[in-house]
């Protein structure tokens, strides 16, 4: 039995050697015409090498991945962002796609849990072979997943995430955003406060998430006005069920202004509890608090509250905003989904479309990157100030816009004083 097996293996080995030898003969005896066709082939190969399509890009499709909090207490934001992505996809595809390619995306729920975001990144890249990660939400989740994107030459496009480290082009060369850092937002907020009320007229309390993101929020404010007006710093956790103790601390500290860095549901709960406990101050919500839902939940308590935003009010009357609302409502959005989350994803979609058009047919991470870097003075129809990217600046927007709840809607405030 054993000797038969050896014989069989020997026959296979001989046949294998013969096949290899024949191959060599063919190559050495190639005719001149064959040589010419071989040259053509190699020149076409060279052309192909010059234009190597990115992973997830085919002749008729570009596939993106998006990690979103579709469950958990930030699920509403995920839902809103995904709807805006659908709107972008439909707009592009109904116009015939870009260079004949339709765009498509896959959403994976991470419940704002960095571990799940990492697993999603691996799934997107290794199994679904997506081209880029688009419009994901959350600094902490993205911070965990970004190294995986980078290692796999995968673009991270227009997330709602604000960690300072993201914007370092040397570290994250494939990261593009229109959303300034949490640091930049409170830096801008501090300046607005001082310009409006003067340094002597304010005593500020900061309510931030207990994370790196929260610390950067505090740092941004301290750096903007030297920290002397900051009289109380409080944190919240994702598993907080009440903000009562923090509010009582703000009352003790005698704050005149409270900055609340949360999502919209938490902001509404904060306003509710602030009213219950008698905190009399101006309330300033971070970008995440600005939605129709925060007003719906808090009701009259939201009236007069401010929002520190990086974009204009989703309900404002500007060409870009009107187009956004029209498209969102046509896609089935509710009033509550006309929000910062969906507007940011929508605006990122506008820039994405521009970049894909500029990148041309040869689409990969490098060509799209270069295309984004070439975008200057890009108009979003008033949603943001004109956007400018370059090879050393992948953040197109660095402005703070102040909004206020007036008669039940967020409106842009031109003159706070």
């Amino acid at each position, binding site marked *: 039995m054993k000797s038969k097996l050896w014989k069989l293996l020997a026959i296979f080995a001989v046949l294998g050697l013969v096949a290899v030898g024949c191959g060599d003969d063919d190559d050495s005896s190639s005719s001149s015409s064959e040589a010419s066709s071989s040259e053509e082939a190699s020149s076409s190969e060279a052309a192909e090498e010059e234009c190597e399509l990115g992973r997830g890009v085919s002749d008729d499709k570009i596939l993106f991945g998006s990690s979103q909090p579709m469950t958990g207490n930030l699920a509403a934001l995920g839902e809103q962002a995904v709807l805006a992505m659908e709107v972008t996809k439909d707009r592009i595809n109904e116009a015939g796609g870009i260079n004949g390619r339709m765009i498509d995306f896959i959403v994976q729920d991470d419940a704002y849990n960095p571990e799940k975001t990492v697993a999603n990144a691996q799934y997107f890249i290794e199994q679904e072979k997506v081209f880029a990660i688009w419009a994901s939400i959350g600094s902490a989740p993205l911070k965990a997943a970004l190294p995986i994107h980078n290692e796999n030459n995968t673009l991270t496009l227009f997330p709602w995430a604000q960690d300072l480290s993201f914007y370092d082009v040397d570290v994250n060369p494939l990261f593009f955003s229109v959303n300034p850092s949490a640091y930049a937002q409170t830096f801008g907020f501090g300046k607005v406060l001082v310009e409006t009320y003067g340094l002597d007229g304010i005593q500020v309390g900061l309510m931030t998430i207990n994370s790196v993101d929260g610390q950067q929020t505090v740092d941004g404010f301290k750096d903007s006005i030297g920290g002397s007006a900051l009289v109380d710093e409080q944190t919240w956790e994702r598993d907080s069920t009440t903000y009562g103790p923090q509010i009582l601390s703000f009352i*003790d500290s005698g704050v005149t202004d409270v900055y609340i860095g949360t999502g919209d549901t938490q902001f509404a709960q904060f306003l509710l509890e602030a009213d219950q406990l008698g905190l009399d101050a101006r309330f300033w919500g971070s970008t995440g608090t600005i939605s129709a839902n925060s007003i719906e939940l808090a009701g009259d308590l939201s009236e007069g509250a401010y929002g520190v935003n990086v974009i204009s009010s989703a309900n404002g009357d500007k060409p870009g905003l009107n187009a956004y609302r029209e498209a969102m409502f046509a896609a089935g959005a509710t009033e509550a989904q006309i929000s910062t989350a969906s507007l940011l994803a929508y605006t990122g979609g506008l820039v994405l479309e521009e970049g894909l058009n500029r990148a041309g047919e040869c689409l990969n991470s490098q060509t799209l990157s270069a295309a984004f870097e070439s975008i200057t003075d890009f108009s979003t129809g008033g949603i943001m100030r004109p956007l400018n990217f370059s090879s050393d600046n992948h953040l197109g927007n660095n402005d703070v816009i102040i909004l206020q709840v007036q008669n039940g809607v967020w409106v842009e405030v031109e003159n706070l004083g």
Partner: protein
Amino acid sequence: MVDYIQIAWQGLVSGFAYALIGLALVMVYKTARILNFAAGTMAGISGFLAHWWAAENDMPFAIAIIFAMIMTAVGTYVIERLTVRPLIKLGDFLPIVIMTLGVEELLANVSLLWWGGSAQRYRVPGDIDRINWLIGDFRLNAWHVVVAGTTFVTLSIVGYVINQTELGLGMKAFAEDQDAAKLMGVKESTVSIWTWVLSALVGGVTGIVYAPVLFLQQDYMNIIFIKGFVAAILGGFLSLSGGVAGGLLLGELEAFTIKWAPREFAAALPVVIVFIVLLIRPHGLFTREKGHERV
């Protein structure tokens, strides 16, 4: 002084929720040795149902709650019969735990599909959740009084059921010794089903009274569930009164540490304290070492 009272009250308002969910968890664990990981989501669905009947079907507030509680009871009956009971017969603990996790996932997704992911306001008659009273320097929210009252009524009813009814006697018997209880003629399936239903009703009441506080959203009771779980561990997981006391204690710990601890540690401190307590008393604060605490 008013400061302390105000913080203590805030802690109690959170603690009531932890206590009720802790109680619901211990109830099932003590009689059937099952950890119900779907308890939080089940409680949240009760809140959604009450809201759905009232807001979308124009049903009076109280009637909507009764309907929601009936649906909770019936739903729990079905879940127990279809998912838990067949596995209890196998006598293995782990598949039942996995099954409750599966039920949790299923209910969470059904809830998400049905009601969406956006938070919704649970309106109460007269918007009394927005009414605040000032008593001296102490501020009291009207809905928090309702929460406290509901907690005491619920605990009293559970206490009555356990101490004054045949079901309670059966639960006690099973908690002490399942084999002996069976030999004494206590029907296991009857005790099991009613324990599940009673536990779900306690969770349901919690889900409803906390909906105006936390707002209705897909998993708004999951955080309360986790805290209730910690409360149950703190109480020893075998003592109903321990679960309740553990919840109240946890609420107070959170309130006082957030107020006075450094910001970096405030959120983690209650968990650290619970950890230290369990190092010293692994069987919890309110259970004797071998777990023979009375119901």
